[in-house]
């Protein structure tokens, strides 16, 4: 384990400028009436009142490791999987682990910060919080950032179904937002992930985070959802955030409740993949980067 050392002055300065202590206080007191995400359930996470995501005040991590997958420019990345999610995507590849809000080890911010510091010292370029939905844990991410004693290269892989208040808490702490813009309509979001007001929330939040750090917008192509999901997502980005990095994810596999599903229980066909790539090209999206696993 890395011994705690004095941070470099310039890094320490950045941490102080972010006023982490004040943010942590706001984040933790906000858990008494949770509006971290756009479910806005109002549950008291401090006393164990049941929230739709099942989360309390503590965070758990069910997996942590070095990764060479997905966004090439962020590699090597050290991934921290935080348990619990506000969505129930029928095709979730992490579903068995991430939906359990107490899966894995309880996060001790000091211990995790030391582990992440060690990873950085060994050459890790990016610390990536993933889940589940890591944005449900702003208090924990801030605690870890504070305990690190230096500014860390944090990326958030998020569904972005979060409130502006949560985005404000993480502003400046998160350097890279990797956003999964999953559905092109509220109807698909409701039927596939069980959430309301999806499109409006996503478009508002994407505009916010586009001003705050590096933004990579991903869309996982789902079988049978090219016209209802990829097309409106890609067209909105082309019209509203044309400079944003866009990644078409082609590696869909039916997982969790999609296995055996009439529409989602297959991979995308070669013709769907070709049509999707042609659509992205025709819209002139900034899609040169590569995110798929290989």
């Amino acid at each position: 384990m890395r011994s705690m050392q004095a941070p470099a002055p310039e890094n320490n300065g950045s941490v102080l400028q972010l006023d982490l202590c004040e943010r942590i206080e706001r984040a933790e007191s906000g858990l008494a009436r949770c509006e971290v995400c756009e479910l806005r359930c109002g549950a008291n996470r401090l006393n164990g009142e049941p929230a739709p995501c099942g989360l309390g005040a503590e965070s758990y991590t069910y997996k942590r490791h070095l990764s060479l997958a997905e966004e090439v420019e962020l590699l090597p990345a050290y991934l921290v999987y935080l348990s619990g999610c506000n969505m129930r995507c029928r095709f979730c590849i992490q579903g068995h682990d991430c939906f359990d809000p107490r899966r894995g080890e309880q996060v001790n911010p000091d211990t995790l910060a030391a582990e992440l510091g060690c990873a950085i010292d060994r050459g890790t370029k990016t610390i990536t919080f993933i889940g589940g939905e890591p944005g449900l844990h702003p208090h924990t991410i801030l605690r870890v950032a504070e305990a690190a004693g230096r500014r860390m290269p944090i990326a958030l892989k998020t569904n972005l179904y979060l409130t502006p208040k949560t985005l404000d808490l993480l502003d400046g702490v998160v350097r890279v937002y990797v956003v999964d813009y999953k559905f092109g309509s509220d109807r698909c979001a409701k039927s596939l992930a069980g959430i309301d007001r999806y499109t409006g929330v996503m478009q508002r939040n994407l505009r916010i985070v586009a001003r705050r750090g590096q933004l990579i917008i991903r869309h996982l192509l789902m079988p049978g959802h090219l016209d209802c999901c990829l097309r409106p997502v890609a067209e909105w980005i082309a019209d509203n955030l044309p400079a944003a990095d866009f990644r078409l994810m082609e590696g869909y596999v039916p997982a969790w409740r999609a296995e055996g599903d009439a529409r989602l229980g297959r991979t995308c066909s070669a013709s769907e993949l070709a049509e999707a790539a042609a659509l992205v090209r025709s819209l002139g999206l900034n899609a040169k980067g590569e995110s798929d696993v290989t």
Partner: protein
Amino acid sequence: MSRDTARKSRATVDDGRTVTIRLAPDGRVLFHDLNPDLVAIARLLNPLDTTLERREHAAEQISEDKP
């Protein structure tokens, strides 16, 4: 194995994580989760994937010597 299958294989690698491997419709071998030991194998299986050289280079940035 058919080229349009959703079937996948899971393997547990040395560091304890489970990696999912499957054949994509276009013939690529996709890995869900790629650890340093698997990058060279992935390169052999996907000679046209231009990202794998950069992934291998990223793996070389990690020092095993530091605590």
